[in-house]
């Protein structure tokens, strides 16, 4: 089960859950699993960036997820 | 009335003719020397069409005469040209520094002390320097020319003593006596390109023993017009222009200042800094004067 961690400003949508685990083989699967837990959250999460095992993705979708993966949702970063 | 026009008189009489004819027809005219203020104003807060009367193609406004008794600087001579005149620089280093401080190298290629004076901004850098050096404005008009001390020329923010068909020909100074020195300092937040937050011009004369026998002190950007500060001059006269005299002169300038607070500085800041500038400028003028004792300049 991959570990998923939410930043504190998303806790409103997870009913206060900061950390959870999901069964998935890629990031798309993670989103689907989370949407089942908290309907509507997928739309929010698609607007955020995500770090999967330390690698930051702005537009993740097909990235593989291992059972021991750590997934952190985070703000999108743009730049000057 | 529609639209701008440009006139380029080549004589005093022609210039006055243009000004008179515009005045008679109710059309606005504006004098143009280097144009570094006029063009900016035309594009920002003052877009009303007018005749631009270019006065820099007249012999008198371009003349620089250095005599034993008197020095004349034409109103339209660019600052860069003045600063290339070694003789003038030796006589009035402070005045020329004030001209050199106006804007960039590019601006100095056009801007003149006559234009700076006629723009009549409270913060015009050359104005306190001219006043300190005892500059006399030479004004051409329909009835011939007239003269007035520089400190009387600027009458308010952006206002001066020029009548409708008059223009400034140039500035007259007494050739400085032996033992004289002048200086101008201003404060700006950067090293270049800013408008003065406060400025101080000092001209003084020392006798052979280093005692100050004459002084004029003028401050800028701390009142609607540049001010002559006799109290500051009195604090210097009769002294060796030592630390105590400098402090007293500075305090007199701070006391004389009646600044406003704006985007460039607060009242307290300007009041304090103008005193510092007077002190520092007086010390420079003193050192220059000491170097000039006994020698002709």
């Amino acid at each position, binding site marked *: 089960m991959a570990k998923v961690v939410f930043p*504190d400003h998303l806790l409103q949508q997870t009913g206060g859950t900061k950390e959870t685990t999901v069964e998935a083989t890629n990031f798309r699967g993670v989103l689907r699993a989370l949407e089942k837990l908290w309907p509507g959250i997928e739309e929010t999460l698609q607007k955020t960036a995500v770090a999967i095992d330390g690698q930051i993705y702005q537009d993740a979708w097909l990235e593989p997820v291992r059972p021991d993966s750590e997934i952190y949702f985070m703000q999108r970063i743009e730049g*000057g | 009335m529609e639209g701008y026009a440009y006139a380029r008189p080549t004589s005093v009489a022609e210039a006055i003719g243009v000004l008179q004819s515009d005045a008679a027809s109710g059309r606005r005219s504006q004098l143009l020397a280097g144009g570094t203020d006029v063009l900016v104003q035309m594009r920002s807060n003052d877009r009303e069409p007018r005749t631009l009367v270019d006065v820099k193609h007249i012999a008198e406004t371009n003349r620089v005469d250095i005599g034993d008794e008197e020095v004349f600087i034409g109103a339209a001579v660019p600052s860069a040209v003045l600063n290339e005149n070694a003789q003038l620089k030796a006589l009035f280093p402070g005045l020329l520094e004030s001209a050199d401080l106006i804007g960039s190298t590019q601006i100095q290629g056009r801007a003149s002390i006559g234009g700076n004076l006629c723009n009549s901004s409270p913060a015009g850098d050359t104005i306190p320097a001219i006043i300190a050096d005892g500059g006399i404005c030479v004004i051409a008009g329909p009835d011939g020319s007239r003269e007035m001390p520089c400190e009387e020329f600027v009458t308010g923010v952006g206002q001066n003593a020029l009548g409708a068909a008059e223009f400034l020909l140039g500035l007259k100074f007494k050739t400085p006596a032996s033992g004289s020195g002048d200086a101008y300092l201003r404060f700006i937040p950067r090293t270049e390109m800013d408008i003065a937050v406060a400025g101080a011009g000092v001209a003084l004369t020392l006798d052979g023993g280093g005692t100050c026998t004459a002084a004029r002190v003028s401050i800028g950007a701390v009142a609607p017009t540049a001010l002559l500060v006799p109290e500051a001059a009195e604090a210097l006269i009769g002294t060796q222009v030592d630390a105590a005299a400098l402090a007293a002169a500075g305090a007199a300038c701070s006391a004389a200042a009646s600044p406003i607070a704006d985007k460039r500085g*607060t009242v307290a800041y300007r009041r304090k800094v103008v005193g510092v500038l007077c002190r520092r400028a007086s010390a420079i003028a003193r050192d220059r004067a000491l170097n000039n004792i006994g020698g002709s300049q």
Partner: protein
Amino acid sequence: MAEAHDYKAIGTRPVRPDGVDKVTGRANFGADLNLPNMLHGKMLRSPHAHARIKRVDVSQALAMDGVYAACAGGDFPTNERTTDLAKNCMARDKALYHGHAVAAVAARTPYIAERALDLIEVEYEPLAPVLDVDEAMADGAILVNENLHTNGDASKPASNVAAIVKFERGDVEQGFAEADVVVEVDCRVPTAHQGYIEPHACTATINEEGEATVWCCTQGHFDVRSLTANVLGKSVGEIKVIPSEIGGGFGGKTIIYLEPIAVKLSEMSGRPVKMVMTREEVFRATGPTSATHCRAKVGAKRDGKITAASAWLAYEAGAFAGAPVGPGCMSILAPYDLEHFSIEGHDVLVNKPKVAAYRAPGAPQAMHAMESAIDDLARELGMDPIDLRLKNSADEGTQAPYGPVFPAIGFRKCLEATKAHPNYTKPKAEGTGRGVAAGFWFNIGMQSSAEARLSEDGTVTVVEGNPDIGGSRASMCLMAAETLGVPYDRVRTHVGDTESTGFCNVTGGSRTTFATGLAVVQACEDIIAQCKQRAAATWDIDVEQVDWADGQAIPKPGVNVDANPLSLRDIAKNAGRTGGPILGRASVNAQGAGASFSVNFADVKVDRETGKIDVLSFTGIQDAGTAIHPAYVEGQMQGGAVQGLGWALNEEYIYDENGVMENAGFLDYRVPVASDMPMIDTQIIEVPNPSHPYGVRGVGETPIVAPLAATSNAARDALGFRIADLPLSPPRVLEAIDNQADA
């Protein structure tokens, strides 16, 4: 990727390919295009910081001789999906800041257009503005947008706070309880503008079938295309955007202001329309960055181990949500390895221009607060500020405050380089102060495309879609030359328009050399693969038996074939006979952008009688990853440093009580001039980014992050007390000196 490399092209400093055009005046920038029959467009802007727009009547302007078109908010599609950006381009029911566009005209000359603006009638109902972040967050504040709810939670009352973001770890209270020393800084940083020298400009034309062409100066023409389409309600395919050369952007040219208006005026008039902003418009209506109010608190043991840190950040977004407070929160503690922290950020609307990205958006303000606190902590502990940072430094394997674990990073190396730097080891001069601060930026990847086209003489044309804002064509040529194994001057890089190259995200976020560079490298690898196939066919051997080295195909060792190596030139010459033109292509969504850390330090001198601070020396040390063109890496470090120094010392938006900016020009918005600055010393640390074939991290953002705090800390050192707020302008400094003397 190993440390030492025998690169042939990378790391050299050749003249940039677009250089000659830029030193001779040939290069065409945003305002340089003139088309036959072209009109000039001008914008009417709100004289109020906050007002309801009751009526706009352009009929008198249209009636003026020489005026061909006029438009206002009602001429653009407006519905519930209308974006903030569209409303920023042209106000609809409300003008939200002084300078907000409310109408536009197109006329034969700019002068006529300006005069026509005076004839447009707008009926306003002025509203009280909210002008300051604290005021905007207070209970009962005037609302900029009555329909805005914090984090979209409509169950709560409307608020100016668009979003609150939080990052926490451990137990911050416990951490502070464990500390021997706790320091706190409460500071404000003013609104600053990117200050690019080229004002926004565009020319647009549209044909009878609704196909529009836009020429403009932008950091991202693909974004101009989609954003313009959105504002006009057109499809992306109907718009072609051709980027001109760009005269600076720093983030401020990543969004649009004029383009849809110019297209609309062109549509109305049937003629091309050019719009060029004045400098005053640039200041009043385009992308400044957020003014901020931040509090930073940090506690440590006597030995310097930080036990806890917390931060509270409030960022002005301007009239629409979107202050860079998220990146501010995520960067503020990035240099440190911490067990307990809490960070809370607020995105706050005020009646000021909508902020736009500015170089490392959000990080300079946040890190000014925390790096000031860290400096105070070092003083309290009696520790060297570098030693304190070394003791708490983030490293490979450290979990960043925003979640992920850092791969190889160069912060520790930057700190060590600082300690050894001659500018740091030399004693500071009498009466001067020295200040140190750390900087950080994530860097980003995102989407890029590139083509590498082999010409018949063996030269290579690289086509990509990122406007060259600071020498990126040279970097692309270097990476292509390195990959192909040919000399630099055999490669040219061309920035294509939206029709002649594949999609690229903006030139920004320090992504171009990294992500577009990756696409260029892959496109060149594609050429190599094809060349190897052509060589194999020529030699009648298997492609697996061909190597590529030094710009030529050679048989692999042991392959028994009687063949001379085939150079790129040889293969190009015969391409027609071996299968046709050779074209390499790549498109990427680049992952693995490498964070870039820095340490900056400054020596300053304070005139205690005028409050003026002179910067005597400034040193920037930064992990840039591999420096592809070191001269342009140094240039980024120097330029960012001076922007940061300007912000620290004199740059600020000054508003009157009605929300009117009082210093909308370079005369009183005081960017540094040449005589204000010393030489900016740089040291590039090269810890290669493992996610890029040549180890590129990206360099341009980080340099502006540390100078604010470095200057503040240096002033603190010189003065003997801290002035927390910026800028350290002479009146503020003198007042603080006087207050200190009175106390």
